[in-house]
């Protein structure tokens, strides 16, 4: 099979468009399965060098008729995820909505940005009778605008297009490694509300900022193929079946989205508070959806053609009960990490912080977790606080820190918790692994975090295991990490959203119907596993030592008695688990390395 790639040299403005033969099934499936093979061919010692490519690609089912086939992947060596040797690690970040399909409809499956532009630009990728056309445009008018403002500016100039843009954080890439990439949504373009989707993790927006590419326009008419009955049946099963119930509204037979994680987690006191130190004081209940909803207008909205409607958008409620001004999209992670985990138990303040992070274009997980570290440090050092002296519960100072991170004023925050904690010599309560801040799940309950390859929860499905099954045995954890947990990245190749819960059988059928690809479930999952192992191999190549695959030391040294599970992640447990996990992965990594050499 062939795929279409544009390689853009930003310095010379040379553009090469070519049909590239797939080397293996990972290349065919796409996403990080392909981009990490490209990254593996490069020697990159710093994220902000011309040698570090930014790869923007799609999955084989992006732009297909399969519901949620909307993913775009941004891959590069990350400024945030870096080994103790200082080498950047390969990273991808994914976002939904219509940019990916529009990119594909220009005729491209992949764009590689090489080098660095000599001045800020935005790129316009157009479909034409002669094939994809790529233009460079000066971006002076976009400088300093928020992500949303950039997208609105572009919307007014490019019809039938979608957009990827960075915000002020990406423009201040040297001081903000956690900058994200915003992707426009249909709802945003029509309503004018700030409703981007995000490729948030790992600082892909910072890499784009380094390259001086402030935005990318993908302009093409929609090219939606006729819906096959087999795909219609799959879509029906996805949107009405159990796999997506969690994300649907209650009146549509769902559970109300990720925001509703608060309730099951709080049963165990697993909702992070005050830098991942749950207190068991019941305060997380203040952010339960049922408690918040009466004071606001909450509307479930969706990505392009998706029937799941997972976006829980919070608006002001007018006096007559109707919808007022848009405030923010509430998902569990940003709500928790920008409110409860900062000691701020107020939905309006949470909305303000989420909105601010979005406008600046940062990863809300990384910035929230870094701010919570600052607050924790200041509580421990009341006589020698850092930065603005923020402590838990201080919304105004939290807001200052977020703004300072996204505008380059406070690189201590913007460069992430790993660097900050190392500079202060207090790493024991810095909630990250390998430089990527933890999402809103307790590390005390997830010894699988270290083996996540691109963020703690979306690339290793172990974050909810203790709440789900309560199994704390070594056998269980070693098996979980090395089998089911890693297969969670399947959809990061295919171009689907994990919220769809597409079954393996449906995925295989979709590949057959939409891509003409005859693969078995076993072949597909073997490709996913190879892609995962390749990522581990790349981490090793970038200098990660086994000692870096660990948890913050306070998990071991300061068990939290408020968690309703006996502390099981002891040093002894983790050491043995580590041995067991590496005994599985090491031979596969060695085999991968041998294959690359050959």
């Amino acid at each position, binding site marked *: 099979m062939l795929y279409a790639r544009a390689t853009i040299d930003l310095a010379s403005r040379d553009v090469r468009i070519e049909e590239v033969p797939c080397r293996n099934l990972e290349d065919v499936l796409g996403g990080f399965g392909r981009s990490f093979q490209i990254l593996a061919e490069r020697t990159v010692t710093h994220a902000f060098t011309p040698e570090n490519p930014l790869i923007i690609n799609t999955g084989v089912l992006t732009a297909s008729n399969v519901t949620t086939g909307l993913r775009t992947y941004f891959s590069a060596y990350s400024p945030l995820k870096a080994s103790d040797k200082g080498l950047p690690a390969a990273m991808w970040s994914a976002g939904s909505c219509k940019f990916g399909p529009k990119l594909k409809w220009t005729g491209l499956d992949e764009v590689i940005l090489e080098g660095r532009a000599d001045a800020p630009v935005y790129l316009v990728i157009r479909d034409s009778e002669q094939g994809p056309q790529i233009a460079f445009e000066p971006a002076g008018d976009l400088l300093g605008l928020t992500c949303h403002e950039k997208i609105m500016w572009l919307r007014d100039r490019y019809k039938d297009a979608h957009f990827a843009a960075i915000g002020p954080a990406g423009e201040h890439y040297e001081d903000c490694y956690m900058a994200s990439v915003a992707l426009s949504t249909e709802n945003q373009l029509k309503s004018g509300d700030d409703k981007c989707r995000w490729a948030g993790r790992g600082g892909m927006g910072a890499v784009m900022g380094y390259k001086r590419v402030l935005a990318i326009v993908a302009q093409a008419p929609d090219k939606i193929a006729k819906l096959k009955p087999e795909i219609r049946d799959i879509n029906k099963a996805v949107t009405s079946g*159990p*796999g997506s119930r969690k994300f649907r509204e209650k009146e549509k037979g769902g559970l109300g989205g990720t925001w509703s994680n608060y309730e099951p987690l709080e049963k165990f006191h697993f909702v992070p508070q005050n830098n991942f130190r749950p207190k068991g004081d019941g305060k997380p209940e203040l952010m339960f959806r049922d408690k918040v909803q009466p004071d606001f207008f909450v509307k479930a909205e969706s990505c392009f053609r998706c029937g799941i409607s997972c976006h829980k958008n919070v608006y002001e409620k007018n006096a007559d009960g109707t919808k007022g001004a848009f405030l923010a999209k509430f998902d569990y992670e940003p709500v928790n990490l920008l409110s409860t985990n900062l000691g701020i138990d107020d939905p309006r303040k949470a909305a303000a912080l989420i909105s601010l992070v979005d406008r600046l274009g940062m990863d809300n997980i990384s910035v929230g977790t870094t701010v919570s570290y600052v607050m924790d440090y200041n509580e421990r050092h009341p006589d020698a606080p850092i930065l603005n002296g923020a402590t838990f519960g201080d919304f105004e100072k939290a807001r200052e820190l977020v703004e300072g991170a996204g505008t380059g004023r406070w690189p201590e925050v913007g460069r992430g918790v790993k660097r900050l904690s190392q500079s202060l010599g207090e790493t024991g309560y810095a909630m990250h692994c390998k430089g990527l801040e933890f999402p809103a799940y307790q590390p005390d309950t997830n010894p699988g975090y270290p083996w996540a390859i691109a963020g703690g929860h979306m690339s290793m499905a172990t974050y909810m295991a203790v709440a789900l099954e309560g199994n704390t045995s070594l056998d269980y954890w070693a098996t979980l990490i090395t089998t089911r947990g890693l297969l969670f990245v399947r959809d990061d190749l295919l171009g689907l959203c994990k919220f769809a819960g597409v079954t393996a059988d449906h995925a295989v059928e979709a590949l057959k119907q939409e891509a003409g690809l005859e693969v078995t479930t076993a072949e597909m999952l073997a490709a996913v596993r190879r892609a995962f192992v390749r990522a581990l191999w790349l981490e090793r190549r970038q200098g990660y030592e086994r000692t870096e695959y660990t948890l913050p030391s306070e998990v071991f040294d300061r068990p939290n008695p408020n968690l309703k599970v006996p502390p099981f992640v002891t040093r002894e447990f983790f050491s043995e688990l580590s041995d067991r996990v590496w005994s599985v992965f090491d031979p596969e990594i060695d085999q991968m390395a041998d294959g690359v050499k050959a």
Partner: protein
Amino acid sequence: MPKIRFTNLFAERIGGVSSVDVPGATVESSLRALTEQHPVLTPLVWGKDGALNAVMVVFLNDRQLVAAEIGTSVEPGDEIDIVSALEGG
């Protein structure tokens, strides 16, 4: 027989099967039959106290049941969904 449908969380443990038909006169007995057929699913469906796992939610023909309702009678052809109340994103 009622049909029990579930997510990948369950399916990946039993060879990719995403639904099963089970004998059962109630939702609870149907779920018991499921875990008798597939013991590997027991810790997902049932808590250590033998009651429904506190983070699982059960739907009968698209209607969400509270835990106390899992004794509800079922008919052949009824659809029972069991899903986790905990997913990230």
